[in-house]
């Protein structure tokens, strides 16, 4: 884990989401599904974000502006800087034979990077509206499902599922495919095991998601 002050390259609009593009500095991109702690200007605590895109010179984070921290991150402009810590946690296991990416809403955030690393496998992405579905353009070979249809209705058997999305979606995916790799979320203050704030039930015990996950092989 390493912390650096990174320059904002720019912020792109992707439907209702924003793609925050940062100069990469000397940070490693890590494994897909790992995350970084981004310090929004004016906030006390950093916010966990999955790495969405990695090039030689840039790191990209796809952000849903839902509250004060994410809003502060998406209103950054070129030339401003912010602290970024990472990569953190455990990402997806990539030794899978027939990968299928399954995402719900902003849960697609790690998929552009994951898809690249897995050789552009098929994906099923679920969204709340057509506007949200614009973000599917970031993921190659994606089938788009808009509510009231759900991603679980579009799942095909015989795949190795790698999923990220809201908790009800992850639970439904786990029900259909107990072997799926699932990326979970929990409120996090530190991202590196210091605060015990991110505790979730894993195997019947409360454990730190930032240390054990965020990608888990079994339902949390």
């Amino acid at each position, binding site marked *: *884990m390493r*912390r650096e002050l990174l320059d904002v390259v720019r912020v792109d609009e992707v439907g209702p989401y924003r793609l925050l593009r940062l100069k990469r500095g000397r940070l490693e991109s890590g494994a897909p599904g790992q995350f970084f*702690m981004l*310090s929004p200007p004016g*906030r*006390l*605590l*950093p916010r966990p974000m999955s790495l969405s895109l990695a090039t030689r010179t840039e790191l990209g984070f796809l952000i849903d502006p839902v509250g*004060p*921290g994410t809003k502060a991150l998406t209103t950054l402009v070129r030339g401003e800087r912010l*602290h970024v*810590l990472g990569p953190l946690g455990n990402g997806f296991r990539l030794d899978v034979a027939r990968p299928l990416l399954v995402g719900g809403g902003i849960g697609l955030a790690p998929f552009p990077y994951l898809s690249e690393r897995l050789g552009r496998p098929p994906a099923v992405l679920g969204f709340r509206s057509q506007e949200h579905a614009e973000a599917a353009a970031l993921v190659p070979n994606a089938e788009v499902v808009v509510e009231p249809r759900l991603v679980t209705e579009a799942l095909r058997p015989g795949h190795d599922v790698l999923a990220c999305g809201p908790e009800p979606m992850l639970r439904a995916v786990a029900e259909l495919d107990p072997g799926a790799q699932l990326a979970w979320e*929990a*409120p*996090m*203050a*530190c991202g*590196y*095991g*210091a*605060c*015990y*704030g*991110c*505790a*979730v039930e894993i195997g019947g*015990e*409360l454990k730190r998601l930032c*240390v054990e996950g965020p990608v888990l092989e079994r339902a949390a």
Partner: protein
Amino acid sequence: MILNASGCLDALTAPEVAHTLDVFVTKTVTPLPREGNQPVRIAETDFGMLNSIGLANPGIDRFVADTLPRLLDLGVSVWVSVGGFAAHEYAEICARLDHEPIAAIELNVSCPNVSSPEEEVEQIVAAARAATTKTLYAKLSPSVPDVGAAAVAAARAGADGLTLVNTIRGLALDELTLEPKLGPGVGGLSGPALRPIALAAVFAAYRATGLPIVGVGGVETGAHGLELIAAGASAFALGTVLFADPEAPVRVREELEREASARGFATPLAAYAAAHGGPPPTPLRRVA
């Protein structure tokens, strides 16, 4: 001397951070294992954060058998924070730790996330004192009418030093639903909001006892640490700031040196009790 605040760093998952501190303070250990409170356990607030971790810890048996040996292997100086629900529980744990190669025991007599210890500070410290010859720090709550009186009680009962302060109870509501953001409802407030409160508590406890004090509460910079030293702290600890900045110990140490010399102090500790003007009070002697 720069420490971490108890519960704000796990040296086993972030040894590189622990190595930048002078002392590693463990999360509070209780007699029995505790899972801690149900999520949600943290929330950002204006000028601070709330936590309701609820003293999650492996319990003293597993701590001594498993955690402590691995901490000692790191080669850092270890203080063990001890908690309980009655004076005899603190005493039991202190007795267990008496022969371990740790530098000190910090008695957490102030956690706001569990129902308050039945006995008063004085009884707890006295029971712990009888159980160990280790250096004993009593960590006090600022949520009392007279911190100086609590400090005197701890000193009388045999505390070698004081840690000030623990968090203060706070509540945050979800903007839309107006329901508590944290699982258990309320939590402990930490971060910048605590800074003036910690300063006042250190100031009062120094006046009342002259004991060595670890100042804790909202320290983010070297200047904040220097203020605690001036108020009467002989060391200070970093808590919430570590969450955003695991490199804070290195930065704060550099800033501390700079801030002290900019004010004409040869070393940061030359500013000890500067806020009090006159000569320091005579340290209280142990009574029993």
